[in-house]
């Protein structure tokens, strides 16, 4: 797959990918886009490892999730993510304010719970697909979704 073909594939998946990362970053659009760029660069480098082009989106989402986790491990923000999310970034649109309470509730979840809940409710993934994306067991994913859902219900 050359650069043009890769960009064409990205065009069709980037919306979902970025929304997924924005939700994981609790509304921090700038950070989410930086992670998305890094993830897509990694995907481009290892494009030969993609066996089935029809699974491009799921493959990229997995890379993005790993990039998010690696970013969380190495990046030490001066503010906690839940505090930072309350400050609207310059690039965040006014519309994102509508979802401020959702972002704040999401920020109270653990990274794994947040990922499972976002993939399940926003992307419509099955527990099996979530397990593949996050390298977790299906029963663990079911527990994460249930726990995340209960936390969100309490907070929203």
């Amino acid at each position, binding site marked *: 797959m050359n*650069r043009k073909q*890769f*960009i064409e594939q*990205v*065009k069709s998946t*980037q*919306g*979902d990918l*970025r*929304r997924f990362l*924005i*939700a994981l970053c609790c509304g921090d*659009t700038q950070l989410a*886009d930086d992670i*998305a*760029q890094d993830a*897509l*660069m990694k995907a*481009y*480098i290892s494009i030969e490892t993609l066996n089935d082009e029809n699974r491009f989106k799921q493959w990229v989402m997995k890379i993005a999730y790993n990039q998010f986790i690696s970013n969380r491990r190495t990046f030490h923000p001066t503010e906690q993510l839940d505090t930072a999310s309350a400050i609207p970034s310059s690039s965040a*649109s006014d*519309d*994102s304010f*509508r*979802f401020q309470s*959702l972002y704040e509730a999401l920020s109270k979840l653990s990274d794994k719970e947040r990922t499972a809940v*976002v993939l399940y*409710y*926003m992307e419509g993934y099955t527990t099996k697909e979530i397990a593949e994306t996050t390298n977790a067991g299906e029963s663990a994913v079911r527990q994460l979704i249930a726990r995340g*859902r209960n936390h*969100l*219900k309490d907070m*929203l």
Partner: protein
Amino acid sequence: MNSDDKLKELFDELKSEPINNEAFLRQLESNLKAMDTVKSFEASKRRSRRIPTIVAFTTGLVCGIVLSLLFPVMKGWISLSLIPHYASLGDVVLILPTVITSIIFSILILFITYSAYDISSQFVKSKN
């Protein structure tokens, strides 16, 4: 409406939010372009090293074979002319010519191989 449906609805609304695609794609395209430039530079560097390496390997191999065939002749020459006064030292005279000849041959092969690499590199560079 139960709370699960409410959550679904909230996430559906979040999913339908428009985001700026153009700026993101423009940045991605320039990043990928830069990456391709680095990749092609590295590939051309690898290609330019390939010919000198093959030339050096072949030269080293040929030199090794030729000098190995000449080994007995050289060994005899060294034991007679270079260290005749060691003849009285018994075992030493048996080993020393072999060791000296081997060292000379190794240095000679190394020098010829390196020169072959250097010359062919210069040739490839001037050709490009």
